[in-house]
C-alpha cells in the first residue's frame, strides 16, 4: 500500500495563473522532488494549494483572496486546484474549485469539490475518503512549514494536538468502539431487566443489580477524581523537582552574594581606615603642605649659591685690579697714569657694589640651608606615605565598584527568589508526597470496592442470564449480551496495549531520527514520548534536557523527528511536503536532516530557497533526487511559472 502524488494542476491560484506539475513515482533510491524558488516566488502557494485541495473550506472573501491577479480575473473567473494521487492502489483525482463573479460592489463565489477514483465519480464519498487519507487535524504532519513545526517540541501541547496525533494513529475509532459497546451493554441489560420484570422473575435481583450499578458508577467517578488528583500531585512533584534544581543553583548564587557582600563590607572597613590615616597625615603635618614652597625655596637657594660662586670670581677680579693699582704698572709693563688710576678706582667701586649685592642679607646662611634641606627630605618621605595611602584608597575604590557591580548582577538574577531555600522545597515535597500517599491508598481502596461491586454485579448478572433462557427472546438477548461484553473487554484491553505499543514505536523512530540529525550525538541518548505525546530529550547520563533550554534549531530537529515518526507509524504513510524547513538549522543539522530524507521511504516535496539547499548540499543529495523544478517569476506579467530545473 502506498500514497504518492502524481500531478498538481493550478488555475488562477495565488501567484500562478496556469500550472501543471507532474510527479514521478518514487523508487527505492530516489524519493526527493525539489522546488527551488526565491522568497515570494510561490513556494508557499504550492503548500497552500495542497492544503486547500484536501481541506479548503474557505469562505467567499478568503476564496477571493486566493484568486490569482484578482483585479484582472475578477470579472468572471474560475479558481481550481486538482491533485491526482495514488492511494491504496487506486488513482484519485481530487479537485476543489470556485467560480468568482461580480455581484454589485462585491463578488459572488461558488465553491465546489469533485472526486474521481479510478475513473468513477465518487461525489458522495468525498468527506469519508479525505478523512481517511489525511484527516483535517493531522494535515500539519504532512504539509509542514519550518517556521511552525517547533510547536510539537513544546513541553505542553496546545489543545487538539493530542487528539490529532491519536487520530493519525487510528486510536479514536477503537476508543469509540469501546465506548459504544459499553453503551450497548447498558441498553441490552435494560432490555433484559424489562423482560424479566414483565415475567415477575427475580425482581429482587433486578433491584439489587440496579443498586450495584449505581454504586459502580459512583465508584468509577471517585476513581477518576482520585486519579486526576494523583496526576496533579505527581505533576506538582515533578515541577518541584525542577524547582529544586533551580533552587540549588540559586542557593549557590545566594552564597556567592553573601560572600560578596561580606567582602564589600571588608573593603569598606579598609577604606575607612585608609581615609582616617590620610586625615591624620593632613592634621599632623601642616609643614607637609609646604613641601612645594620649601622645594621652591631650596631651588632659589641653590641658585643663590651659584651666584655666590660668581661673587668669588668678582673678588678675584677686584684683587687683580688692586694689585695693578698697588704696583703702579700695568700688566703690559707700562706705567699707569692718573686717568688710568681713576678708571681702575671706579672699577673697584663697581666691583664692591657687585660683591655687596651677591652677599646681601637675603642670602641664606649655610646652617639655615642645611636645616631647610633636612625638613624638605623629611616632608618628602612623609609625602611618600600619603601617596601610598591615596593609591591604596583608589585601589580599594576600584575593588568596591567591582564587587558592587557583581552584587547588583546577582541580586537582579535572584529577584523574587532572595529567600529561596532548599529546605522549603523539601518541606513542600514532603507535604506533597504525604498527600500523594494518602491519595494512592484511597485509590487502592476505591479499586478494591470497585472490584467487589463488579464481582457482585457479575454474580447477579449470571443469575439473571440463567433465568433468561426461560424464553426464546431472552435466550437470544443473553447471547448478544455475552458477545457484546466479551467484545467490549477485548477492545478495552487491546486499545490500552495498542496505545502503549504505538507510543513506544514512535519513541523508537523519533529517537533514531533525532540521533541521526543532532549535532550532539555524543551528549544526547534519545527522546522520550510521554503519555500525552509531549517530548523530552535525555542525555547519556540519564538527565533530562529541559525543552526550553534546547536551541531553536534543536527544537526544529526534535519536532521534525517526531512528526516523521508519527507519519511513519501510520498504516499508509503520506508524502511529506516541507516548506523552507531549515530556517533555524546550522550546517550540520541541515546536512544531517537532508541525509535523513531519503531514508523516509515516502515521496518528499522540498520547497527550498537557495539558502536551504546550496549547490554543495544539493550535489550531496543528488543521488536521491527524483525531480527538480524551478519556480520562475515573470515580473512583467506578475505571475510565477514552474519549469523543470
Amino acid at each position, binding site marked *: 500500500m502506498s500514497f504518492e502524488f502524481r500531478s498538481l494542476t493550478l488555475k488562477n491560484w495565488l501567484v500562478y495563473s496556469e500550472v501543471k506539475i507532474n510527479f514521478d513515482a518514487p523508487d527505492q533510491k530516489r524519493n526527493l522532488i525539489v522546488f527551488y524558488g526565491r522568497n515570494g516566488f510561490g513556494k508557499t502557494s504550492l503548500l497552500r494549494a495542497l492544503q486547500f485541495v484536501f481541506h479548503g473550506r474557505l469562505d467567499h472573501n478568503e476564496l477571493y483572496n486566493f484568486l490569482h491577479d484578482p483585479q484582472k480575473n475578477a470579472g468572471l473567473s474560475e479558481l481550481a486546484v486538482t491533485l491526482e494521487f495514488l492511494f491504496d492502489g487506486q488513482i484519485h483525482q481530487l479537485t476543489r474549485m470556485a467560480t468568482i463573479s461580480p455581484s454589485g460592489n462585491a463578488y459572488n463565489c461558488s465553491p465546489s469539490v469533485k472526486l474521481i477514483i479510478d475513473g468513477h465519480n465518487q461525489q458522495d464519498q468525498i468527506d469519508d475518503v479525505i478523512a481517511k487519507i489525511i484527516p483535517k487535524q493531522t494535515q500539519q504532519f504532512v504539509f509542514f512549514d519550518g517556521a511552525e513545526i517547533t510547536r510539537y517540541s513544546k513541553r505542553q501541547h496546545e489543545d487538539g494536538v493530542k487528539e490529532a496525533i491519536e487520530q493519525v494513529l487510528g486510536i479514536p475509532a477503537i476508543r469509540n*468502539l469501546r465506548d459504544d459497546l459499553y453503551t450497548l451493554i447498558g441498553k441490552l441489560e435494560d432490555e433484559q431487566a424489562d423482560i424479566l420484570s414483565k415475567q415477575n422473575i427475580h425482581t429482587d435481583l433486578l433491584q439489587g443489580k440496579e443498586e450495584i450499578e449505581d454504586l459502580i458508577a459512583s465508584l468509577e467517578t471517585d476513581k477518576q477524581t482520585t486519579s486526576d488528583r494523583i496526576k496533579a500531585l505527581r505533576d506538582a512533584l515533578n515541577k518541584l523537582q525542577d524547582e529544586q534544581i533551580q533552587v540549588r543553583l540559586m542557593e549557590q548564587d545566594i552564597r556567592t552574594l553573601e560572600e560578596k557582600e561580606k567582602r564589600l563590607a571588608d573593603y569598606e572597613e579598609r577604606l575607612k581606615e585608609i581615609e582616617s590615616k590620610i586625615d591624620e597625615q593632613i592634621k599632623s603635618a601642616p609643614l607637609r603642605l609646604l613641601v612645594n614652597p620649601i622645594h621652591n625655596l631650596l631651588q632659589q637657594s641653590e641658585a643663590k649659591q651659584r651666584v655666590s660662586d660668581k661673587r668669588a670670581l668678582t673678588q678675584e677680579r677686584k684683587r687683580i685690579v688692586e694689585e695693578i693699582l698697588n704696583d703702579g704698572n700695568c700688566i703690559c709693563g707700562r706705567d699707569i697714569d692718573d686717568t688710568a688710576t681713576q678708571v681702575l678706582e671706579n672699577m673697584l667701586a663697581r666691583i664692591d657694589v657687585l660683591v655687596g649685592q651677591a652677599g646681601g642679607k637675603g642670602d641664606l646662611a649655610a646652617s639655615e640651608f642645611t636645616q631647610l634641606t633636612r625638613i624638605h627630605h623629611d616632608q618628602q618621605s612623609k609625602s611618600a606615605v600619603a601617596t601610598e595611602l591615596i593609591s591604596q584608597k583608589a585601589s580599594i575604590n576600584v575593588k568596591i565598584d567591582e564587587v558592587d557591580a557583581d552584587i547588583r548582577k546577582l541580586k537582579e538574577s535572584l529577584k523574587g527568589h532572595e529567600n529561596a531555600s532548599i529546605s522549603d522545597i523539601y518541606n513542600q515535597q514532603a507535604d506533597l508526597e504525604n498527600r500523594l500517599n494518602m491519595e494512592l491508598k484511597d485509590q487502592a481502596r476505591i479499586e478494591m470496592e470497585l472490584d467487589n461491586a463488579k464481582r457482585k454485579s457479575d454474580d447477579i448478572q449470571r443469575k439473571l442470564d440463567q433465568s433468561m433462557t426461560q424464553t426464546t427472546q431472552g435466550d437470544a438477548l443473553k447471547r448478544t449480551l455475552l458477545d457484546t461484553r466479551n*467484545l467490549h473487554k*477485548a477492545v478495552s484491553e487491546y486499545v490500552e496495549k495498542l496505545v502503549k505499543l504505538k507510543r513506544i514505536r514512535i519513541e523508537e523512530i523519533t529517537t533514531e531520527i533525532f540521533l541521526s540529525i543532532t549535532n550532539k550525538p555524543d551528549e544526547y541518548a534519545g527522546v522520550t514520548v510521554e503519555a500525552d505525546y509531549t517530548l523530552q530529550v535525555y542525555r547519556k547520563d540519564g538527565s533530562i534536557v529541559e525543552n526550553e533550554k534546547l536551541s531553536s534549531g534543536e527544537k526544529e530537529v526534535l519536532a521534525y523527528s517526531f512528526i516523521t515518526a508519527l507519519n511513519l507509524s501510520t498504516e499508509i504513510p503520506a508524502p511529506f511536503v516541507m516548506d523552507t524547513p531549515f530556517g533555524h538549522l546550522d550546517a550540520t543539522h541541515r546536512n544531517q536532516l537532508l541525509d535523513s530524507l531519503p531514508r523516509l521511504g515516502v515521496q518528499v516535496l522540498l520547497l527550498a530557497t537557495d539558502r536551504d539547499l546550496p549547490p554543495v548540499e544539493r550535489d550531496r543529495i543528488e543521488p536521491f533526487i527524483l525531480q527538480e523544478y524551478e519556480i520562475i517569476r515573470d515580473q512583467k506579467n506578475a505571475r510565477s511559472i514552474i519549469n523543470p530545473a
Partner: protein
Amino acid sequence: MNKQDKENALLEETLAKFGVSLQLYEKTLYEEKKRVHMQRRRNITDELRHIIEQQASKDDVK
C-alpha cells in the same frame, strides 16, 4: 517482527483471550471508522448490535 505484525499479534492474542472473532472486531470497527472519518459522532449502538447478532447467527450455522 515489523510494527504491523506486532499490532496484529497483539490484537489476535487479545481477541482470543475473550473468545472474540477477528471478523466481528473488524466489522464493528469499520462501522466506527466510518463515523470517525465523517467526524460525526452519533450513537451507533443499533448498528453494532445488528453486526454482533448477525455474526452470532453465522457462527451458529458453522
